[in-house]
């Protein structure tokens, strides 16, 4: 039950500890002066995992570690890094586990290609079914004629028609 709830409870335990009172992730003092750069920081943050939480991005999490990561992202942006540089920087320190969108690599071929394969495979199967229909068009059986019916009745009654 409680889809999120169980996780949230856990999340709360992990990230806050009982009795703590923070609710938000990004605090006013973190926000960059340049709105464009801030927007970019938010976009990057949504791609990075809060490492001590259950399935939360650093943009959503109020754990101290998430805050540190948000600050790092913003520092790198201020230093003039673009999105890919910032992400490279973070991955170099925390590993690929931090990426919520795993990169396309030998480890994740199956992850990224599975939907395509399934769509193609399913499409092929459907095509086969339709194709079989073309080769062997079934017709609606024509109803018995009156003659045939009486013949059948005869057979059913045990007399040869």
């Amino acid at each position: 039950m409680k889809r999120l709830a169980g996780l949230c409870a856990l999340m709360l335990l992990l990230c806050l500890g009982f009795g703590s009172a923070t609710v938000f992730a990004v605090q006013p003092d973190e926000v960059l002066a340049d709105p464009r750069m801030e927007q970019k920081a938010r976009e990057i943050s949504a791609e990075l995992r809060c490492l001590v939480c259950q399935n939360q991005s650093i943009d959503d999490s109020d754990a101290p570690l998430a805050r540190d990561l948000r600050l790092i992202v913003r520092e790198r942006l201020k230093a003039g890094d673009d999105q890919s540089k910032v992400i490279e920087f973070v991955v170099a320190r925390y590993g690929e586990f931090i990426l919520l969108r795993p990169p396309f690599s030998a480890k994740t071929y199956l992850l990224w290609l599975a939907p395509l394969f399934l769509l193609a495979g399913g499409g092929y199967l459907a095509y086969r079914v339709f194709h079989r229909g073309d080769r062997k068009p079934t017709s609606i059986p024509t109803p018995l004629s009156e003659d045939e019916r009486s013949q059948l009745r005869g057979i059913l009654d045990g007399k040869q028609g």
Partner: protein
Amino acid sequence: MIVEIGHFALILAFAVACLQTGCVAWSLWIGNDEPRSIATPAAIAQCFLLLLSFWALVHSYVVSDFSVQNVWTNSHSAKPLLYKISGAWGNHEGSMLLWVVILALFGGAVSAFGNNLPARLKSNVLAVQGSIGIAFLAFIILTSNPFARLSPAPFEGQGLNPILQDPALSFHPPLLYAGYVGFSMAFSFAIAALLEGRIGAAWARWVRPWTLAAWMFLTIGIALGSWWAYYELGWGGWWFWDPVENASFMPWLAGTALLHSAVVMEKRDALKVWTILLAIITFALSLMGTFLVRSGVLTSVHTFAVDPERGIFILAIIAIFTGGAFALFAWRAPQLRQGTMFSPISREGSLVFNNLLLMTICAAVLVGTLYPLALEVVTGDKISVGPPYFNAVFIPLVLILLVMLPFGPMLPWKRGHAVEAAWRLRVAQGLALAAAIATFVSKPDSPLLAPLAMAVGVWVIAGTLAETAFRAKAFTAPWPEVMRRFANLPRSSYGGMLAHIGVGIAVLGITATSAWRAEQIVAMKPSDRLQFAGYEVVFDKVSERQGPNYQETFGTFKLSKQGEPLSDLTPAKRQYTAPPSTTSEAAIHASWAGDFYLVMGEAAKDGSSVVVRLYFNPLVRLIWIGALIMFVGGAISLTDRRLRIGAPARRAVSSQPTARAGQAS
């Protein structure tokens, strides 16, 4: 004493479930139909026993009987009554009991109302239902007993996690389970049909009401959960692609596919083997959802390995049921007669396309959810698969599906013309194009996907209305004729149309919220003014009040728009003592244009200001209204005469030969 009666009823229900399945097995063994007649009363008895057992648990929660371990761990005497009751299923043991209660209710419903079913099919269905009951009752009795006692009884309970103390979340689990477990009916019918080796249009008609009911519950259950997350978790999101959410979304996708393929089977006697397979898959996904949430495997593979008893048990249940079902399918399916043929451009063809897309989406969600687990087990590498992955895969597939949606109902059965269908939808195409242009012009800096997605939402709604108009011959026939045709449309058509309109409405809400959500984080001092999203907020004061089982600090914010006062917003932070924790309550001013959403955070160190986070979520309400319309559509479809009557066609056919024979002799 009541607790012991509950425990005893639970064990007795297990025995009755064994009888329910055993009598049918015995019948098959001795080749005599007499013993199988026990299945019907057994299912009803099982239902009553489990209701009794469940009542006993709820009763011990209501009276706060802390000598019961489960009550002690999850309840507190100061909790409001509603949360005492919902606390009964707000934990592992209680929620598993609820699971089997709902299973037994469905079984009991088939027993009581399934009089139109052939006796053999009915008892076979009940036998399969019974076997699922055996497995899960054994699981509860052996690993998760909700009636375990404590001695000496503690004086006070530990309390329920405050985040679960919410009206929406009280009803969320029962609805979700009614959906999950309801798909067991489709599964049982599929197995029963495979056992008999006979299947046809009548089967689809029998299965459809149960599948539809399950789908409705799941739809509304998921929507309720997402609404709860939206207002309770305090950051205004409504879907997180969380594994626990995915666990309920996968059966929904498969169930939606099943509803559509069952239509083909009912109307055209085609896609039979596929529909059976889909029924098995849907329930397998429901079981997997139960496993994912209940075993703790999602938290970490290691937690699972440390305390594997419950997880392994459910895994074994899944292995036996899905493995057994697939084996039976592989053995029997080739013997099922293939149905009629149809062209790809036809109603059937469009429904095949619908199934292909829905199942691909479902598989993508499955892969995304399980891939990190599988990779870690196989290679030890840890990766994260989060919302960016799911959005990247889900959005394109869903858009393709929705673009094709209005064509389906416009195509005739067997063979149709794409151009003709497109021509009938010309008004809808115009409206969709207009929506795209309007979006692009009015919000030029929005994401590229936004105009497209808004157009798709309008396209689905307008296309569905066009279908209704086409069927009623609006604009082509005289009005009295149109009204008559409109009134005579079968209820299942109305239901389908409403459900599709609901989808379109939800798409509009989802797109608007995702693309144009505004957000601001700011520290405010009392009497500070703030302009945000066309509203004006004045921070009045912070005060304290006492709730039934919490202490609340709440802020008062005066909200106005263009000088006109709207309402006072009172976001709060609640301090619960049992268990000690804090929740944050968002304040929402809802309107059709969107929700003004305000959360109050930490007060500054010197106490002079508080951090306030504001959101404006445009059209967000439409997401849940869309889901509600889908639910209502399902309900209207459920009242369709053909579903209530059962199988008139079959009766008519079977009565004919006797009449003829009478004439002939």
